[in-house]
């Protein structure tokens, strides 16, 4: 089914209405994935604008989209660029926040701890970790999405998991 859709996609659109119709179909198919991907990368509730920006950028280039990669892969790259621009703009650091680990803020909710723990990971590790443990993709799916060898994805995800669990334990979380 996906291959048939991709074959249909590779035909040039006949009119802007048809183009918009096809774009709308893809929007409804991928909107949850895009939303999750962006959320887990930045851990902010303020993601509506970023999701909209992702689809707007996708629309602007949609006529040129030639189905060489799957639409999910294509739009994920756009979402990633939007996210990176956001992170750069907000000057998010990738270094460990020492004060968070050493703080005695017992009242921190798990959600806050998870968010902080994820932000302690490098962007690449956070990406692999989030796509596997939160979005629910397999290592093979992530590998195809990012066009990175599966072994590299496994290594990043495991390394991120180790660091993340260590962070949780140091902050009193011992979920078994």
């Amino acid at each position, binding site marked *: 089914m996906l291959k048939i859709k991709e074959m249909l996609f590779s035909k040039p659109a006949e009119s*802007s209405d048809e183009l*918009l119709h096809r774009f*709308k179909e893809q*929007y*409804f198919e991928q*909107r*949850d994935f895009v*939303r*999750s991907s962006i*959320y*887990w990368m930045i851990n902010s*509730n303020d*993601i*509506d604008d970023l*999701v*909209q920006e992702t*689809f*707007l950028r996708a*629309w*602007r280039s949609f006529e040129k989209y030639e189905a060489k990669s799957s639409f999910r892969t294509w739009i994920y790259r756009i979402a990633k660029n939007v996210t990176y621009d956001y992170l750069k703009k907000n000057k998010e650091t990738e270094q460990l926040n020492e004060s968070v680990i050493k703080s005695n803020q017992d009242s921190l*909710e*798990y*959600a806050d701890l*998870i*968010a902080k723990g994820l932000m302690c990971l490098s962007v690449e590790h956070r990406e692999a970790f989030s796509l596997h*443990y*939160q979005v*629910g993709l397999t290592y093979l799916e992530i590998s195809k999405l990012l066009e990175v060898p599966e072994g590299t994805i496994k290594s990043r995800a495991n390394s991120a*998991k180790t660091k993340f*669990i260590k962070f949780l334990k140091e902050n009193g979380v011992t*979920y*078994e």
Partner: protein
Amino acid sequence: MNDENLKKFLDENTKVPRRSTNEWPELLKKIESEKKNMFLKNFLTLKNLSFGVGSFAVLAIVLVQIMGTSGTSHRVADLQDIDAFLANDSYFNEVENQYSWIDL
């Protein structure tokens, strides 16, 4: 913490914020607005281009006309000079002095 427990922990304690029900209508509005802006931008570009091409054409025509007119004036002036020379009596007068020794 094994993988399944970790996934469960993450799932139970974090949730992706709910999407607004207006997400697609708002996106569509922006798309339509961009389409209109693009149309206007293309129209203005075409209009400016036409204006530029038209102006250039007028300038070219004017230049050609000026060049053509100045050439014509030159020829007319030359013809007038020749005409004046031929009509001038002094030619015959000079010849008369030069050949006055000939007894006709």
